[in-house]
């Protein structure tokens, strides 16, 4: 099983919950905004603590409230592509890319640069990048950290229409060529149907 997720977290008056066991390359988590899709990603990444449940990915237990396992976010090896990208604004692209570099990644640095077509951006500062460029740098930064799985939060939201197709193809290539399990959040059913081999709908409220 690539993903075995069971998460509960009470937030305000409601409960964010997900039960999902799937052997899928890409699971799309779909639902209207505000149902807690990003919270789910944060719990999987270790940035938020679920009240109860477990997170197992590729046979690795990252969190289990029953046995008290809670690996800190820095040890979970998640490649998290945030919706707002979160490139470090005070570092050049090159330092951003190398920030989380760990050995054992599927691709070398040169391969990542070629794969994403960002070799010419290395000396730029993040605020000077276009939406599509910043998106590719953020993907590159996640890939270079040798992740064991990827979390993608609405990766098309900050990209203009003309660049959407390009980023979609890139995500398909990451999915097919790198063979990293991907948990993908979107509110767009078409996007989910195109990319996912499993779609999980988050209930409203």
């Amino acid at each position, binding site marked *: 099983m690539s993903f075995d997720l069971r998460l509960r977290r009470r937030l305000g008056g409601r409960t964010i919950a997900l039960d999902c066991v799937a052997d899928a390359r890409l699971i799309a988590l779909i639902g209207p905004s505000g149902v807690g899709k990003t919270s789910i990603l944060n719990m999987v990444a270790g940035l938020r603590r679920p009240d109860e449940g477990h997170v197992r990915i590729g046979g690795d237990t990252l969190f289990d409230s029953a046995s008290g396992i809670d690996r800190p976010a820095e040890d979970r090896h998640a490649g998290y592509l*945030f919706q707002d990208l*979160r490139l*470090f*604004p*005070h570092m050049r692209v090159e330092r951003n890319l190398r*920030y989380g570099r760990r050995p054992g990644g599927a691709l070398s640095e040169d391969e990542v640069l070629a794969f994403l077509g960002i070799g010419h951006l290395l000396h730029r500062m993040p*605020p000077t990048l276009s939406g599509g460029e910043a998106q590719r740098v953020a993907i590159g930064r996640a890939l270079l950290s040798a992740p064991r799985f990827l979390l993608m939060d609405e990766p098309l939201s900050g990209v203009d229409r003309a660049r959407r197709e390009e980023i979609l193809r890139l995500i398909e290539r990451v999915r097919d060529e790198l063979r990293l399990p991907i948990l993908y959040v979107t509110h767009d059913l078409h996007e989910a149907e195109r990319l996912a081999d499993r779609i999980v709908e988050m209930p409203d409220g």
Partner: protein
Amino acid sequence: MDFSLSPQDWTVIGLSLKISLVAVTTMLPIAFALAWILARWRFPGKLLLDALVHLPLVVPPVVTGWLLLLLFGINGPIGSRLDQWFGVTLLFRWTGAALAAAIMAMPLMVRAMRLSIESVDRRLEQAAQTLGASPLRRFLSISLPLSLPGIFAGAMLGFARSIGEFGATITFVSDIPGETRTLPIAIYAALQVPGAEAAVSRFAIISVLLSLGALLISEILARRATQGRMPHVL
């Protein structure tokens, strides 16, 4: 008006600079730690700490000087131990003037630093965390560089405040030429002497120039920092 500076004048200027520099550099890490705690930590008694930090800003400076006298005087709880253990006396020394200046500068330094720490985007630290960065590395590579403009601003304010410090200093370490007679104290002393208007205006102009210089230097430093490495922090 005669603007040539006597050796005594230079002593006053040098002493003021030395005291302010020592005060600010000593207070810098302490103020940053306080700013960090006030910006990031949650604990009971935080309001009290916040109030204590701001106390020198609102209490009459002469009261702060008197409290320093009680604490760091020869028989004070801290002063007596400094003397016994290290043979160090702050009373009537330039080091005491630096302590008074540092205490008086602290609230302004902490405020400026706290604001800039609070404006650091915590989500960037989370991103660094998912990329495997330890708490120390997150601090050194993200939080600290992104709050540098506020650290510069705080140091600048602290320096300007130290140059102007008068009340707590004269109460704590008195007016000793060559040891504790800083610019404001020299101005006050000159005002007590009939016919010393020239000295007063010389010192006053120097005070203004020093403060202006401190402002300009820190502006340039902050601007260089923002242009070179942190384009959209300020």
